[in-house]
């Protein structure tokens, strides 16, 4: 879906490439939401440690280098968009070794939701500027 949206990004070479940036941001938020949903789903799984994705700044840097392509659906994701298991501060695990704190996860999900709303708004506004320049109503 996002790939289709980005097909016109090649047209914009001047200034900050906001379309491309917004697209990568949206992709990152999409994968983060997936990982956070996994954390919530595993809130009662023994021994599960909550995960998060690499921060967006890190993703931007790693995308300057070459990333592995997934040619088969069975392939593992490349290092560019890998979810890294991050141990939360010790001592909070419950008796079964589960380290998911539901409040933290829901907070992160709300945060991801806000950031996604922000990114889509920026995208829409920028698109509106193009419409204005083209003389069509937005």
């Amino acid at each position, binding site marked *: *879906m*996002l790939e*289709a*949206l980005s097909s016109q990004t090649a047209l914009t070479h001047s200034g900050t490439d906001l379309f491309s940036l917004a697209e990568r941001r*949206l*992709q990152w*938020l*999409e*994968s983060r*939401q*997936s*990982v*956070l*949903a*996994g*954390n*919530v*789903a*595993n*809130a*009662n*799984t*023994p021994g*599960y440690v909550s*995960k998060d994705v690499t921060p967006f700044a890190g993703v931007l840097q790693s995308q300057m280098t070459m990333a592995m392509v997934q040619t088969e*659906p*069975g*392939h*593992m*994701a490349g290092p560019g*968009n*890998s*979810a890294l298991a991050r141990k939360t501060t010790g001592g909070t695990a419950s008796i079964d070794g589960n380290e998911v704190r*539901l409040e933290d*996860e*829901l907070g992160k*999900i*709300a945060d*991801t*939701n806000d950031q*996604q*709303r922000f990114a*889509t708004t920026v*995208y*829409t506004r920028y698109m509106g500027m193009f419409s204005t320049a083209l003389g069509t109503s937005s």
Partner: protein
Amino acid sequence: MDFTNTIGISAAGMRSQAERLRVSAENLANKDTTGSTPGADPYRRKTITFQTTLDQATGASSVKVRSIGQDHTPFETRYEPSHPAADAKGYVKVPNVNTMVEIMDTHDAQHSYEANLNTMQITRSMLTRTINLMK
């Protein structure tokens, strides 16, 4: 990574929690189910455990029910000689179901279910916003 997959993960979480609620309800419903022949075992409490599953396509972790097992805590006995399940000494074995434990489990399952439901709703609104970009 796709929002549709993410909704699927939340759905898997809700399915697991619903299963847990069912097991808890079974235990509560059978908390007085004794045997019918002298010395027979009463209802044995059921337990449920979850397991993380890795979605190979996206690398995200989903969840499923690993197994529904049995609680091997010994049964308590109650002196009631007239009961059909009473042994030679007049003692009846009663189920190893603790009502308090089951109620706490039910509450916990409900909270986790709601958390998954909220996550699913947020993912849906994110998906809607992405679709609206095409307008």
